[in-house]
């Protein structure tokens, strides 16, 4: 699809929201809550985190005011798209037992409104594409994910202000969006560059006052791209994929286990982690029971439990599962790594464990 780039004034952002709302969309956008940038319902640009930026470090995330007038001068909060498509807890179906013992099954229908998410980042668009692969493009299609995905519109904003924990440039997933979003914007000093990447996106642009792009604006955007691509954090350059599985008995797993709390924060904030468990909750009247699924983590005790045995009883084994899955077995499952470089697992780890450092451990030593 031909992607024509336009310029819009900042006031057009409200128009964009208004048009989406008028077309029946629930708009979800970034806003400050409880000291973090989270995505929730939004109907005014006044709710956006304008003039706010984030400072991230291993185990730490704080918001500060900055001098800029920009709406999107921050990197990433703890969650973005994943919970909108793959709910952290949801009912799948309900079973009812009649007096004569017959059981019937009733599908839980998700409350469905088309959702437009504003201001998502390149890493989260990349992660959504990975979750699409997992839930939609395998032997079985997840109908709950699919119905939400079919009704999602994404307005991405290229990153002008990556955090210290970001390494999307080294995974190839950012800081600018390649494809996968419906609309992509770049925030300039005086407004936005905007382009449609899908027919839905094109429809959305039609309602805005578009202006031709000047050479200066293109240069400004290019300067932002170059600046945002200079990230201090990087994935190491060796062949991670094959080396990890040759280092399964390495001492490193035991060393890291002395720090790791096995809390699962890293997998909860990871935008590509898909693990979930299923539980049945009987209603008090005894006549029906609801079957739920909720996010699970390979750091949990129950994740590897079978017939009285926990396959990964040790933290060292759980950390190894997480790292080898993300950076090695994921390649064979989905043709790429499971990491999009968002850095969340580093910032939100209570003890500040850094995956890029964990990987760097295997770089120069011949382990195995």
């Amino acid at each position, binding site marked *: 699809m031909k992607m024509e780039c336009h310029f819009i004034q900042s006031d057009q952002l409200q128009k964009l929201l208004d048009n989406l709302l008028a077309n029946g969309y629930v708009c979800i956008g970034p806003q400050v809550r409880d000291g973090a940038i989270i995505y929730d319902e939004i109907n005014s640009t006044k709710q956006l985190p304008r003039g706010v930026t984030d400072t991230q470090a291993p185990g730490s995330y704080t918001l500060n005011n900055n001098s800029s007038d920009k709406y999107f001068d921050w990197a990433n909060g703890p969650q973005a798209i994943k919970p909108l498509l793959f709910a952290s807890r949801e009912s799948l179906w309900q079973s009812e037992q009649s007096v004569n013992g017959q059981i019937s099954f009733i599908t839980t229908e998700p409350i469905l409104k088309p959702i437009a998410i504003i201001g998502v980042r390149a890493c989260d668009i990349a992660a959504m594409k990975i979750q699409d692969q997992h839930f939609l493009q395998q032997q079985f299609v997840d109908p709950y994910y699919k119905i939400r995905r079919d009704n999602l519109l994404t307005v991405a904003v290229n990153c002008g202000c990556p955090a210290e924990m970001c390494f999307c440039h080294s995974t190839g997933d950012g800081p600018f969006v390649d494809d996968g979003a419906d609309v992509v914007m770049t925030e300039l000093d005086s407004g936005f560059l905007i382009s449609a990447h899908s027919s839905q996106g094109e429809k959305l642009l039609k309602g805005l006052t578009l202006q031709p792009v000047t050479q200066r604006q293109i240069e400004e955007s290019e300067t932002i791209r170059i600046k945002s691509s200079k990230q201090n954090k990087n994935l190491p350059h060796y062949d991670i994929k094959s080396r990890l599985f040759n280092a399964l008995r390495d001492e490193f797993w035991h060393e890291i286990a002395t720090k790791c709390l096995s809390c699962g924060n890293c997998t909860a904030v990871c935008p590509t982690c898909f693990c979930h468990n299923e539980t049945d909750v009987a209603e008090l009247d005894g006549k029906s029971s609801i079957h739920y699924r909720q996010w699970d983590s390979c750091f949990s005790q*129950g994740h590897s439990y079978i017939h009285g045995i926990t396959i990964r009883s040790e933290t060292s084994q759980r950390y190894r599962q997480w790292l080898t899955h993300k950076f090695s077995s994921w390649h064979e499952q989905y043709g790429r790594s499971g990491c999009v470089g968002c850095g969340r697992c580093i910032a939100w780890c209570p003890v500040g464990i850094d995956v890029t450092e964990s990987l760097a451990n295997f770089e120069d030593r011949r382990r195995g």
Partner: protein
Amino acid sequence: MVNLQPNPYEPNEAIILERIQESPNLFTLRLKLTDQKLQDAYEFEPGQFNMLYLYGVGEVAISIVSDPVDSHIIDHTIRVVGRVTRGMANLKKGDRIGLRGPYGRGWPMLESKQKDVVVVTGGLGCAPVVSVINYIDQRRSEYGRLNIVQGVKHTTDFIWKDRYEKWRKLSDTKVLLAADVGEALWPWHVGPVTSLFDQLEFDPTNVAVMMCGPEGMMRVVCDHMLDKSVSAEQMFLSMERNMQCAVGHCGHCQYGNKFICKDGPVFSFAKVRDLFGVKGF
């Protein structure tokens, strides 16, 4: 109205036609889907499994042991190991449960035609290989020599005596039993299951070895078979891991890059040997 069909997560109702107590901890449920159209369309291969749902409690993955040509029934032999199976043990004829499936890849029965077959089980009542033996029994002339080897820890763990008696009478079939710890009146071998292997009759270049049971035992069997020049491609194991969804989504059954529920549960040893025996996978 949103359309969520087909919904691979949602069970169908099945009725218990018969319940057979196999041993104190083992029982068979003979099931039939109550929707006749679904039952008529139901097809499976030996080694595949279903998710069975106990009302108000939850689901559990159970191997199918009946014969695929027998289209009226679906048999599951269930060991009492947890909340769901304990509850299922209390069900009786006429009770209803939920069923979805079949899932996974089963035993290579077609590829193994005209070959000798060695079936090895260890531990307590290993349902997945029962389907193999039944399948061959029904088509005896299509397979070569059949060897059935079962190892148990204690002689008292040995169940299904009648079945083994029956299998012993099949033509061209050898049944070998071993207990690690023997006792008076145990008529068979005392020692590890591999100590019986010299008695097996098979052509190492034309054999399929099919096994299930504890992974440690399977590892020993595989090593032993490799020594006998059987190729890793001709050894097959049925693997078990936590399964919640059975459709490759929930992530619990991952084994390195494999999802046991859809890439298995039956794997050739060649496919899993790199990870096999590494603790924590």
